[in-house]
C-alpha cells in the first residue's frame, strides 16, 4: 500500500468529490435563475444572473437574520452544554471508580440505539405544560446532553490521561475537583473542541424537532425558515428558484465553519472511530 497512487485513484477520487459538490452547484444554478426558468426544459446548466434578486426575496420573505441568530444561539448553547456535562461525566467514567459505573455506562450506550426522537408526543405535552412551546428554550432543551457525548469523552480520556498523573495529583493533595481542572480538562481540550464542533453541526441541522415545536411561532431556526420559503408572495405556490437560493444561503454559514475547522473535524471523526 505504499505505492504512489496512479491516475486512476486520483480520477476516481475527483469524480467522488465532484459528485459531492454537484448538488450545491445545482442549488446555486437553480437559485440564480428566474422561477420560470427554473422549471423550463431544457434546464439551465450554468448559473444565471438572478441570485442576488432571489436572495433579496428570501430576505423579504423570512427573517433570515433572526433565524440565523437563533440557529447560532441554539447550536452554541447545545454545544457548550454537551461539552460541559460530557467532560465531567466522561472523566468520571473513564478515570474514576464508583459503584454502578459499568451498568450506567452500558445503559447510556444502549440508549444510543433507541430512537428517542419518536418520543415527541410526551415532549410536546410536557413543554406545553411548561408554556414553552414556540420558544428557543424548548428547541434547545432536548439537545443539552447526549449519550454520544459522554461515550465520546470517556473513550478519549481513557487513553489521554495516564493514571499516574491522577495519582500524582492525589499524592500532592489535590482535591478531585482540582485534579479534574488541572489534569483532565487540559488533556481533554482537543476532544472537547471536536465534540463542540460536532454537536454544533448536529443541532444546527436538526429539522423535525424545531419544526414540531416552532411551527406557527415567530421564532424560527434556519431549517424551519426554509420550510416557510415555500410560500410565494401571492398564493401558496412553491417557487423553486427562491427555495434553492434560500437553501444555499442557509448552508453558507455552516460551509464557512467547515472551511475554517474541517481539518479538526476530520481528525476528530477519525479519532473517535478508532477508539469507538
Amino acid at each position: 500500500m505504499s505505492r504512489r497512487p496512479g491516475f486512476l485513484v486520483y480520477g476516481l477520487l475527483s469524480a467522488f468529490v465532484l459528485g459531492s459538490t454537484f448538488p450545491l452547484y445545482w442549488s446555486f444554478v437553480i437559485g440564480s435563475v428566474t422561477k420560470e426558468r427554473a422549471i423550463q426544459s431544457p434546464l439551465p446548466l450554468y448559473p444565471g444572473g438572478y441570485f442576488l434578486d432571489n436572495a433579496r426575496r428570501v430576505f423579504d420573505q423570512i427573517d433570515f437574520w433572526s433565524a440565523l441568530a437563533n440557529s447560532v444561539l441554539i447550536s452554541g448553547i447545545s454545544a457548550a452544554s454537551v461539552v460541559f456535562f460530557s467532560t465531567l461525566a466522561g472523566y468520571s467514567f473513564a478515570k474514576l471508580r464508583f459503584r454502578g459505573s459499568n451498568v450506567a455506562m452500558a445503559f447510556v450506550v444502549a440508549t444510543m440505539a433507541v430512537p428517542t426522537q419518536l418520543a415527541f408526543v410526551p415532549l410536546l405535552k410536557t413543554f406545553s405544560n411548561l408554556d414553552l412551546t414556540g420558544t428557543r428554550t424548548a428547541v434547545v432543551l432536548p439537545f443539552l446532553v447526549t449519550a454520544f457525548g459522554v461515550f465520546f469523552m470517556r473513550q478519549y480520556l481513557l487513553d489521554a490521561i495516564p493514571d499516574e498523573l491522577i495519582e500524582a495529583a492525589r499524592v500532592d493533595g489535590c482535591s478531585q475537583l482540582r485534579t479534574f481542572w488541572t489534569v483532565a480538562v487540559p488533556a481533554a481540550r482537543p476532544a472537547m473542541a471536536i465534540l463542540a464542533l460536532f454537536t454544533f453541526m448536529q443541532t444546527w441541522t436538526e429539522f423535525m424537532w424545531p419544526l414540531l415545536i416552532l411551527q406557527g411561532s415567530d421564532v424560527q431556526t434556519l431549517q424551519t425558515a426554509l420550510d416557510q420559503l415555500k410560500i410565494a408572495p401571492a398564493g401558496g405556490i412553491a417557487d423553486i428558484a427562491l427555495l434553492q437560493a434560500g437553501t444555499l444561503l442557509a448552508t453558507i454559514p455552516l460551509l464557512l465553519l467547515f472551511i475554517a475547522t474541517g481539518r479538526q473535524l476530520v481528525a476528530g471523526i477519525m479519532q473517535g472511530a478508532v477508539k469507538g
Partner: protein
Amino acid sequence: MSVTRTDAPAGEVLATSPATGSPVPPPGLTWRQKLSHWDFRFSPYLYVVPFFALFLVIGVYPMVYSGYLSFFSWPRYGLTHGEGVGFANYGHVLTDPVFHKAFWNTIGIFVLSAVPQVVVATVVAAMLDTPLRGRTWWRMSVLLPFVVAPAAAALIFGSIFADKTGLANEVLRAVGLSGVAWHTDRFASWTAIATMVNYRWTGYNTLIILAALQAIPRQLYEAAAIDGASRVQQFFHVTLPSIRPTMLFVIITATIGGMQIFTEPRLFDTNLQFQGGADYQYQTLTMYVFNTSNSGTDPYPRAAAATWIIVLIIIGIALLNYAITRQVQRRGER
C-alpha cells in the same frame, strides 16, 4: 472497563487500591483526611449526576411516558387521557395496512442507503489510504456534504428528482431513456430518498473506515506479500477482516439512523396529506408516528403504541445483526 474496577470502592484511581469497603473513613484520620476521603468517594457521582439528571428526563422519561400512554384512550383535542384500553392501540397499529407498508418502506430505504454507503465508503477509504498528494484536502472534500442539512439536501435533491421538471429525468431523456416516476414508483422513490441519505453520510463513513484502515499494522500486509498474496487477495484476507468491527459500527449506526428517517421523505412528499406518496410508497415508520399523532381517533396513544413497536423492531434488528456477525466471525475463525 473490567468488573473489578466497578466493584472497587468509589473514588479510587486505578493505580491505587487502599481498598476500604466501608463507607466510614478509617478511624484515626484527621478532619482534613476525612474530607479528602469523602471527596474521593463521592466526587465520581457528583460528576455523573448532572448528566444523568438531564439525561433521564430527556432520554428516558419520554419513552416511559409514551409506554404508559399507549394503554389508554385519548380522544382528539382532549386535554387529558381517558380510560385504559389494554392493547387495543397496539392492535390498531399492527393491523393497519399503512403501518405494514411503512415498515417495508423503511427497510427498503435502509437497505438502499446502508449497502451502497458501506461499499462506496470502503472503496473511497482504500483510495484515501494511499500516499496521496494533498491528503487533508481530499479528506475534507469527501466530508463536505456533511455540512448540508437534511432539510437542505432534501430540497436540493427534490429539485433534481422532480418528476417532470427535474434534472435526473432531463438527463435520462437526453440520452434517449424514458424518465423515471420518482414519486410514484415505489423502488424509484426509495432510491431517490436513499440518495439523499447516502449523499450526506458516505463521506463521513469513509473517514471512519479510513481510520480503521490506518490502524491495521503494516506488517500484516508485508507478511501477506511475502506469502505471495496479490493486492486483491490482501484486501480480502487482511483488510476486510481487520476492519470488521468498524464495519459493524457503521452498519449499526446506519440502522439506527435508517429506522428514524423522517426529514428526507417528508420534504420529498408530493402528497398534500404527507402520506409519503399517494400510495404510501415512501411513508416511513417515523412519518407514520407523526401522522398518527394528529389524525383519526386516539391520536396520541396510537402514536405512542407505534413508537414502542418501532423500538422493539430496532432491538430485534440489532439482535439479528449481532447474531449474524457472530456467525460470520465464527465461520471466519474456523
